[in-house]
C-alpha cells in the first residue's frame, strides 16, 4: 500500500522525498511588496523535519519565522521553492495541519465547544458528533466545565487552550504553533508550556513552534532553528539532547539556554 503511494508521488513529483520526513522546506524564498519595492523576508530556506519531531524556530522579530510557519500552513505561498508536507506539495491550507495563532481567534459568537467543533465542519461531520469530539478535546486541554462558555467569558490562557483543542480536533499529523503563548502572562505561559509537553507526549505529532522566548525553545525542542533577519535565513540548527521531562534549573538546560542566547548576542555584532 505504502509502496504504491510512494510510486505515485515519484511519478508526479520530480522531487524525491525521504522516508520519515514529515515536512520538507525546499529552497524557499518569499518577498513582500512594500510600496512597490520587493522586500526579501525569506531567502533560500531549506529544512527537513522528521515525523514526530518538535522543532522550535527562534529569531529576532522580522527574521521571517512566522512567514515560514505560514508557508508550511499554506496560508501564504513562496515566490520560489516549495514546501512538502507528508510528501505532497503544499498548495493551500489543509486539515492535515492544525494551527494555533498568537491571538486565540476563537469566534466570539460561538461557545468553546462550538469553536472546537468548527474544525470538523469542512470534513462534513454531523453536528452532534462534532460536539462530541469537541467536548473530548476540551477535556484533553483541561477545559471541562467550560464547554458552553463564550470566549468573552474565558481568560486568555483558557481561550488559548480552547484554540489548541481546536487545532487538535482533526487529529492532524502536523501541529503549527505561531507564538501561541506570546500574549499570555508569565505564570499562565509556564502552565501552558507544561500542558503542551504533556499533550505532545500523550499524542505525538510533528510540531513546529515559533517563538522569541529562548527558554521556551530549550524546554520544547528536539531541534532549535535559529534564524537571521534581513533577509530571513537559517543561521544555525541546534539539537537539544536533554532528557525529558526537562528541568529548567538543570545545568544542561541552563548551559544550552545561554548558548542559544549567545547566538542572538552574536547576531547584533
Amino acid at each position, binding site marked *: 500500500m505504502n509502496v504504491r503511494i510512494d510510486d505515485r508521488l515519484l511519478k508526479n513529483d520530480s522531487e524525491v522525498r525521504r522516508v520519515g520526513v514529515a515536512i520538507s522546506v525546499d529552497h524557499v524564498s518569499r518577498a513582500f511588496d512594500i510600496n512597490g519595492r520587493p522586500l526579501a523576508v525569506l531567502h533560500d530556506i531549506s529544512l527537513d523535519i522528521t515525523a514526530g519531531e518538535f522543532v522550535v524556530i527562534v529569531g529576532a522579530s522580522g527574521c521571517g519565522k512566522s512567514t515560514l510557519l505560514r508557508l508550511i500552513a499554506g496560508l501564504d505561498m513562496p515566490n520560489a521553492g516549495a514546501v512538502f508536507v507528508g510528501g505532497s506539495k503544499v498548495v493551500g491550507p489543509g486539515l492535515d495541519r492544525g494551527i494555533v*495563532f498568537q491571538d486565540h481567534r476563537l469566534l466570539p459568537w*460561538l461557545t468553546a465547544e462550538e469553536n472546537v467543533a*468548527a474544525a470538523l465542519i*469542512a470534513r462534513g461531520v454531523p453536528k452532534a458528533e462534532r460536539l462530541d469530539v469537541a467536548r473530548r478535546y476540551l477535556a484533553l486541554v483541561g477545559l471541562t466545565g467550560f464547554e458552553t462558555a463564550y470566549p*468573552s467569558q474565558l481568560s486568555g490562557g483558557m481561550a488559548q487552550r480552547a484554540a489548541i483543542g481546536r487545532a487538535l480536533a482533526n487529529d492532524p499529523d502536523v501541529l503549527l504553533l505561531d507564538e501561541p503563548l506570546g500574549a499570555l502572562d508569565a505564570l499562565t505561559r509556564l502552565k501552558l508550556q507544561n500542558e503542551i509537553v504533556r499533550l505532545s507526549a500523550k499524542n505525538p505529532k510533528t510540531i513546529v513552534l515559533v517563538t522569541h522566548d529562548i527558554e521556551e525553545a530549550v524546554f520544547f525542542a528536539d531541534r532549535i532553528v535559529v534564524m537571521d533577519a534581513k533577509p530571513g535565513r537559517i543561521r544555525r540548527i541546534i539539537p537539544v539532547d536533554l532528557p525529558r521531562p526537562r528541568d529548567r534549573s538543570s545545568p544542561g538546560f541552563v548551559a544550552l539556554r545561554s548558548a542559544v542566547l549567545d547566538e542572538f548576542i552574536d547576531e547584533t555584532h
Partner: protein
Amino acid sequence: MQSKGIYLPRGLLLPVAILLAWEVAAHAGRSGGVLIAPLEQIASTAFTLAAGGTMAVDVAATIARVMSGFVLGAVAGLLFGSVIGTSRAADWLASPTFNAVRQVPLTGWIPVAALLFGIGEGAKLSLIALAAFCPVALNTAEGLAGVSQSYRELGRSLNFSGVTSWWRILLPAATPQIFTGLKHGIAFAWIAAIAAELLLTSGPGLGSMIEGGTALFRLDIVMVGVCLIGAFGYAMAVAMERVEARFLRWRN
C-alpha cells in the same frame, strides 16, 4: 445634587414641568384666543377617538404600512448590502450609484413617488422601503467588508468553502453592524411612513389623522396623533433592540 424632598425620578422632572407649562399656557391662551388645547381636552379626545374605533384603524394602518415597507426595504437592503459587501466587482460597479442615491433626503423622493405611483399605497410603501433600504444596505455592506483578516484566515485554515466561510464567519461577524442598520432602518421607515401619510394623504393612518386635525384647527387631535407616533416609534425601537439582544447574546 438630589435632595431627599423630591420624590420624582430625575427623568420625569422635565416632562412634568413641560406639561405643567403647557397646561398653564393653554388656560391662559384660551382668553387670548390662542388655540392651545388643555391636557384634559387632549385626554378626552384621545378617549373619544379610541372608543369610536377610528384610532385603532389609523394606528393599524400605519403599523401595517411601516411593517410591510420595512420588511421589503430591509430584505432588499440585506441582499444588496451582502452582494456589494462580498464582491469587489459588485462594489466597484454599484457603490457609487448607491452612495449618490442615499444622499437624496427622503422628502426629495416624495414627489417622484407621487408621480410614479400616485398617492395610494404603492407610493407610500416604496418610500418606506427606500427609507429602510439605505441604512440596512450600507451597514450590511460595511459590516461584511470590514470582517477582520484574521477571521477570514481562520476560515481558510479550517478548510472552509467560500459559502461556509460566508455563513459561519462573515455573516455572524457582521451581525452587530447589520443590526445597527436594521435599527436605523426601522426608525427611518417610521419617519418615512408619517411623512408619506402627511404629504400623500389618502386612506387611514396616523399622518392622515394629524392632517385631518390640522384642517379642523383641532390641536387636541393633532397632539393625540403626535403622542401615538412617539409611543409606537419608541415601542418599535425597543422591540428591535430586544431582537438584537437575542441575536447578540454572545456579546455580554
